[in-house]
């Protein structure tokens, strides 16, 4: 596409953000993992791109795509932020089809001129070019969960397959998911309280699925299942997950996702606890 490339080069100067990918799926897959609300906030710095989605002021998901994942990542300002319709962005990114066809890659060039300007996407597959102009809005303030690693009480790293199975079998009639972490039995327990009764799922500390287990004190916290449910999208794509809780009972789920080129991206979910567990 010589014509397109030339035009893009001429206009390059005016953009404060230019990012290119040989394989658009390295971006779209990670964004799908946080697509549980229509709108997202995008933050770009020289380190890469962070996309944030929030719901009910209780849950926040962040997708990080490091600058190294892109074949080209130029940013002319300290930081660039805008709000965008994620549903439309994902439709545009997968315009040449959602499932990969072997041997064909869709290349992407993404350009942003600044506040009030649309996000420009140039997608190319097999000589066919799609140009998308997606309107952007001023970013709204995102929640600060103030989740600080020094306040982390408990931390478990486990292989995602272990949690995938558990999440697919969760009793969805339960309002909450209760997470128990303790230095003694049951160590790590997931509980639901549904119409048909309670269910507990215990992971022994020395399970093959658990890579790290750090527990400072016993914590029992409940989280709205409806808020955690969207994180299964990230879980499905990830290879490892880190589960952390801080002294206030806030939950952080960090998913490690390996893209088609073997690079690592992270998706992080924060969720606040539902209520205080009655003393038993």
């Amino acid at each position, binding site marked *: 596409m010589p014509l397109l490339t030339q035009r893009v080069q001429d206009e390059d100067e005016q953009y404060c953000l230019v990012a290119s990918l040989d394989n658009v799926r390295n971006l779209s897959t990670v964004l799908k993992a946080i697509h549980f609300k229509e709108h997202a906030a995008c933050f770009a710095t020289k380190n890469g791109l962070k996309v944030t989605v929030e719901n009910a002021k209780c849950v926040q998901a962040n997708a990080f795509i490091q600058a190294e994942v892109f074949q080209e990542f130029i940013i002319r300002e300290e930081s660039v932020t805008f709000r965008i319709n994620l549903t439309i962005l994902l439709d545009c990114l997968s315009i*040449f089809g959602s499932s990969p066809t072997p041997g064909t890659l869709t290349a992407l060039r993404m350009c942003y001129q600044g506040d009030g300007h649309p996000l420009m996407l140039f997608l190319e597959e097999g000589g*066919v070019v799609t140009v998308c102009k997606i*309107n952007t809005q001023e970013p709204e303030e995102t929640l600060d969960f103030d989740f600080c690693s020094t306040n982390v009480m408990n931390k478990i790293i486990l292989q995602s397959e272990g949690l995938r199975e558990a999440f697919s079998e969760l009793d969805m009639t339960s309002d909450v998911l209760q997470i128990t972490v303790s230095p003694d039995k049951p160590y790590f327990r997931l509980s639901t309280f549904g119409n048909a009764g309670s269910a507990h799922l215990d992971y022994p500390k020395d399970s093959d699925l658990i890579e790290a287990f750090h527990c400072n004190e016993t914590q029992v916290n409940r989280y709205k299942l409806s808020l955690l449910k969207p994180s299964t999208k990230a879980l499905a794509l990830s290879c490892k997950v880190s589960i952390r809780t801080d002294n206030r009972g806030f939950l952080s789920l960090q998913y490690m996702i390996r893209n088609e080129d073997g690079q690592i991206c992270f998706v992080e979910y924060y969720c606040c606890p539902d209520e205080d567990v009655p003393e038993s």
Partner: protein
Amino acid sequence: MKFRAKIVDLACLNHFTRVSNMIAKLAKTCTLRISPEKLNFILSDKLASGGVSMWCELEQENIFSEFQMEGVSAENNAIYLELTSENLSRALKTAQNARALKIKLTNKQFPCLTVSVELQLSSSSSSRIVTHDIPIKVIPRRLWKDLQEPSVPNSDVSIYLPALKTMKSVVEKMKNISNQLVIEANLNGELNLKIETELVCVTTHFKDLGNPLLPSESVSQSRHPEDMAEVHIDIRKLLQFLAGQQVTPTKAVCNIVSNRTVHFDLLLEDVSLQYFIPALS
């Protein structure tokens, strides 16, 4: 009025099945026209229901090993039937690997197209016959004039279509965003699909498609090669057409009459398919 026909060749049977599957995807109900030489599947939608029309034609001798018909009269030697297209494709589904298939016009309490499939059982030499009676309506002679082969209007631009699979995935995504689509093309081998909403503009550019040669006195002769001819159409109608295409056509042409209609002209082996989508007013 009489009609009976038989298919014995497996390749012909599969071919006929593919055609009827395609018709089922393109039109809920259609008219089947039977004449001594040809079979036609016809759709002619009222303007209120979208105004799409379709004309699919196949030579009977390419499909059937036996073919007998007697029309309404000697001078009007044809039969027009209305049927639910899915019924035919569903009946043919049981005919995979059949030994033979017979189609007959019958009257069993109500008029039917009777499809009987002779199945070979693998274990023995015996066979089973599966019979489908597809209810039909015979279309009277006075209504035939509404079901004539549509005349192809003088198009402003005629262009070869890109890979239909690519077009389909693009249009599928565009449909999530907009109800309307602009299809535009020029005589320089370029075709664009465009949608525009308050939130987003998306344009997919296809190029180097090539333009079929036009008859010399055509309007397009005086056209500048870069000039786009465009039509606004209902995106669902275009997607329905694209979703119906299961086999790669031998020839696929798109004719655009600016702001009036887009006409797709496909050749699928020996079957010709014409599909018209009118412009949105």
